[in-house]
């Protein structure tokens, strides 16, 4: 069988001598999903754009061959290539929010693609577009044709993108991080849709993602990319059972999982695109590197079309029996990781830090019935006509030395709740006690003094540091504002100490934030927060903008700091794997309310609320046979008009009439596990 898409030795050049793709070869068969996985900056997206010949201006294909159904795409004229784009080969992109034309109704955007590729126009085209929207699971498709993109939720927009891509009935779909910008429950919907469409149409799919969980759920074949090259390739099962390349193995073991100790990290970062390499590109970050790795570029080992790897460790080893291969070159402890259950060790969960040291377990933050309502104003006199109940009565406690995770999908109010607890937003009602002191109505001076005790780390390490301030000044600002250290020298010593604490070199004080990578910036943000010796840290999605290997570094650091300083964490996250790894307690939020709370191991291993269960099942995991998938219907409703009764009932598989009438009371299940549901899942 000849493959649908055959790429051989593809090289891409960008202005400035950059080589984001340097000799990529892969093949995608009809009806097959080939997942290209790797960290940011590995050249995955550039590979996809090169296939479409849509590289950024000034960039171009510098070498290699791209065959689509035997046709050489590089040899086509631009006009012929346009017929291929959206015709034989279509592409969907990462950001559904910006990838649709904001001022054109979605129906017209689909009809445009139809008309371009020989589809019907006029009324027939409209009917065809509606049929496409219905096929991607958009209810009331006919009426939706005239909607503008901003009216649709993120998941709906991505469905429209998929419908648009299907308009030309492509044989190959290139999906570039199609679900990265979406919530897990929506991601589960979209992934299922993609898999169904592919099955029905027998399409080939090139799926580009950084999320190994998505790969494990979607791919038939996996290619791991590093620094512009594919370094390992294989079928899904063989790959996840026995990843061969040290990079792949480290990538997988950097994933947070419950009960694990220190996460494995990959030292350093992906090398810059412009430089020349001698030898293996991963060698400088590889713990198994040998002298020859520095000088000699590794060749492929293993059968073409089978499981093969580009690494010197496999020079002399036949690849017939992968387990022994993995054992052979690995350090001893590495071997046991590759067991029947895949690479995951079956460690017993580490005991909770039980012997209480001084201060640990003290209640740091107690929140009672916190509410944040935003007024909605309308009309000539700006009268208030309603309110958005972003946070609608939540109660939590954070203890010193412990981590409470606040989880939920975007728009559930978790960030607002976090900010309201620190009085960065004024709460509408309820009580926030920090170390026994009620924050509401505190004077400015007293509040400032208390601020030293509680700090926040934000999601976006690129936007949350002042780009015009030196790192040293960023960290020292809080120290001098609160008058913690007298004299410049003492302050400088303190800053240097803080930088060392977060794993940065004290010489970096004079640099500006843009000189640092994302992970380093997040370290700076942590140092800034620690500078005033807080007892409570509110971490708002601190790792969601980072790559897996960097995420592991930050999570390790966050844990170490907690152990050292007995910090209490309020950890706001949508990533349940991170929460499972890091938190002691968890509170699950849905539309401004906490629906289930309790110790992490209780709540996440035996969820009683249907929402918690659905949320958990939607997370794609790399573990074989994971949890059975529950796909929730529809999107989260708007907090402007939440459904009556239990907010979750319109999407709940267990809902009964009572759920639409009354919000369920919170019931205690013992051991701090609390639940708000009329018909909980029996434990």
């Amino acid at each position, binding site marked *: 069988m000849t493959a649908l898409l055959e790429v051989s030795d593809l090289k891409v050049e960008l202005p400035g001598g950059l080589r984001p793709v340097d000799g990529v070869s892969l093949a995608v068969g009809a009806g097959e999903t080939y997942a290209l996985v790797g960290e940011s900056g590995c050249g995955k997206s550039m590979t996809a754009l090169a296939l479409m010949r849509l590289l950024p201006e000034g960039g171009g294909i510098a070498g290699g061959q791209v065959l689509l159904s035997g046709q050489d795409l590089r040899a086509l004229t631009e006009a012929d290539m346009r017929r291929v*784009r959206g015709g034989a080969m279509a592409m969907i992109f990462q950001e559904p929010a*910006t990838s649709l034309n904001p001022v054109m109704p979605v129906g017209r955007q689909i009809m*445009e693609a139809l008309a371009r590729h020989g589809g019907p126009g006029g009324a027939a085209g409209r009917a065809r577009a509606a049929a496409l929207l219905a096929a991607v699971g958009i209810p009331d498709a006919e009426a939706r044709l005239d909607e503008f993109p901003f009216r649709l939720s993120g998941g709906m927009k991505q469905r429209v*993108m998929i419908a*648009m891509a299907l308009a030309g009935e492509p044989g190959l779909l290139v999906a570039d991080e199609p679900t990265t910008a979406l919530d897990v429950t929506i991601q589960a919907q979209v992934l299922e849709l993609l898999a169904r469409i592919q099955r029905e149409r027998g399409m080939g799919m090139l799926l580009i993602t950084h999320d190994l969980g998505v790969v494990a759920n979607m791919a038939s074949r996996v290619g791991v990319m590093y620094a512009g090259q594919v370094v390992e390739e294989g079928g899904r099962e063989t790959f996840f059972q026995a990843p061969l390349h040290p990079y792949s193995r480290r990538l997988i073991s950097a994933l947070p999982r419950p009960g694990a100790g220190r996460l494995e990290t990959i030292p350093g970062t992906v090398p810059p695109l412009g430089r020349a390499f001698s030898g293996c590109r991963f060698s400088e970050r590889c713990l198994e590197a040998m002298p020859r790795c520095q000088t000699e570029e590794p060749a492929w080992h293993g059968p073409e079309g089978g499981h093969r790897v580009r690494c010197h460790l496999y020079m002399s080893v036949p690849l017939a029996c992968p387990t022994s291969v993995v054992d052979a070159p690995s350090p001893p402890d590495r071997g046991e990781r590759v067991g029947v259950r895949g690479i995951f060790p079956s460690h017993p969960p580490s005991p909770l830090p039980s012997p209480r040291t001084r201060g640990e377990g003290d209640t740091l933050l107690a929140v009672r019935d916190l509410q944040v309502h935003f007024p909605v104003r309308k009309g000539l006199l700006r009268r208030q006509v309603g309110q958005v109940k972003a946070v609608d009565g939540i109660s939590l406690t954070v203890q010193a030395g412990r981590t409470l995770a606040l989880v939920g999908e975007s728009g559930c109010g978790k960030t607002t709740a976090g900010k309201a607890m620190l009085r960065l937003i004024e709460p509408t009602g309820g009580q926030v006690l920090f170390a026994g002191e009620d924050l509401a109505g505190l004077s400015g001076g007293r509040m400032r003094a208390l601020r030293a005790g509680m700090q926040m780390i934000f999601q976006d390490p690129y936007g949350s540091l002042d780009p015009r301030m030196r790192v040293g000044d960023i960290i020292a600002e809080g120290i001098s504002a609160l008058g913690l250290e007298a004299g410049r020298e003492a302050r400088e010593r303190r800053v240097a100490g803080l930088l060392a604490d977060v794993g940065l070199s004290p010489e970096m004080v004079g640099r500006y934030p843009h000189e640092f990578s994302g992970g380093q910036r997040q370290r700076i943000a942590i140092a800034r927060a620690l500078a005033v010796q807080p007892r409570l840290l509110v971490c708002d999605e601190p790792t969601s903008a980072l790559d897996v290997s960097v995420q592991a570094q930050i999570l390790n650091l966050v844990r170490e700091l907690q152990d050292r300083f007995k910090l209490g964490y309020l950890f706001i996250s949508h990533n349940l794997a991170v929460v499972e790894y890091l938190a002691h307690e968890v509170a699950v939020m849905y539309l401004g309310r906490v629906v289930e709370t309790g110790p992490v191991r209780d709540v996440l291993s035996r969820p009683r609320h249907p929402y918690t269960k659905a949320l958990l099942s939607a997370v794609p995991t790399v573990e074989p046979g994971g949890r059975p998938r529950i796909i929730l219907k529809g999107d989260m409703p708007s907090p402007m008009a939440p459904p009556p009764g239990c907010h979750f009932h319109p999407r709940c598989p267990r809902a009964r009439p009572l759920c639409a009438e009354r919000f369920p009371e919170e019931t205690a299940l013992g051991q701090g596990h609390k639940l708000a549901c009329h018909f909980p899942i029996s434990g």
Partner: protein
Amino acid sequence: MLAYILRRLLHALPILIGVNLITFALFFVVNTPDDMARMQLGIKRVTPEAIARWKAERGYDRPLIWNEKAEGLGKATNTIFFAKSVRMFAGDFGRADDGRDIAREIRMRMGPSLAIALPVFLLGLYASVSFALLLVFFRGTVLDFWGVAACVALMSISSLFYIIGGQFLVSKLWHLVPISGYGEGLDVARFLALPVIISVLAGLGSSARWYRTIFLEEIGKDYVRTARAKGLSELAVLFGHVLRNAMIPILTGVVVVIPLLFMGSLITESFFGIPGLGSYTIDAINAQDFAVVKAMVFIGSMLYIVGLLLTDISYTLVDPRVRFER
């Protein structure tokens, strides 16, 4: 929508009062009513009595903004500020110092002003958008480079140079059109051709360069990549997707000046001797005629506020995301 427009118009009132106060203050900081009388009467006829009579005839014998001697409300109303500035809110512009009715003058001069400003506006917009699109289509090529260089050259030269150069070449040397003046009926076209062309040329460089930047910014966006991924041709992408999105920022700068077209152009009208509102304003400033100056500033600021309102309304026409529920 109606509520929104009403609210915006209510906001305009304090702005207009402020504009009046500032115009009044600025004018009478540098002039006194006596200066105005001397200027009007001419040096030979100036006597204290003549000045007093001139001021009494035109109502400049009152205090500026506060009348101590008057009774009750008269303390505020029996002043130059109230008589000359505040009454404009009732549509009463009063008379110019030479005795002519300002309102009538404005009505008469509006036509010539529009006759030149409107074609300049439309042709200028058309020319600069087309030129910018052309540069964007050929972006990164030699044509783009020299196009931008031409834009920079065009915008670096003073508009006075275009006017004088144009008059010299086209009118004096080639005798194609009259140097200046204004006519009746179709004859107008002969007088307008040169000022319109020169004004369009003078504005082309800066706006085309600016629009090019806007287009280039739009072209780098994700939805354009999506449109290309559909297999659309570059022209279809440019006209079908980029143009409408780029019109949103372009509108900000463009719609706001539409009402101001009625005011004409100060320089062009003066140089080409066109009896519009622009030359009227210049003449009034030279003659220190407060009545005309404050009337023109008042109308100008009112039109500007209307322009801002029109800008916001026009957003709702091109951008479906903008609605008035704010």
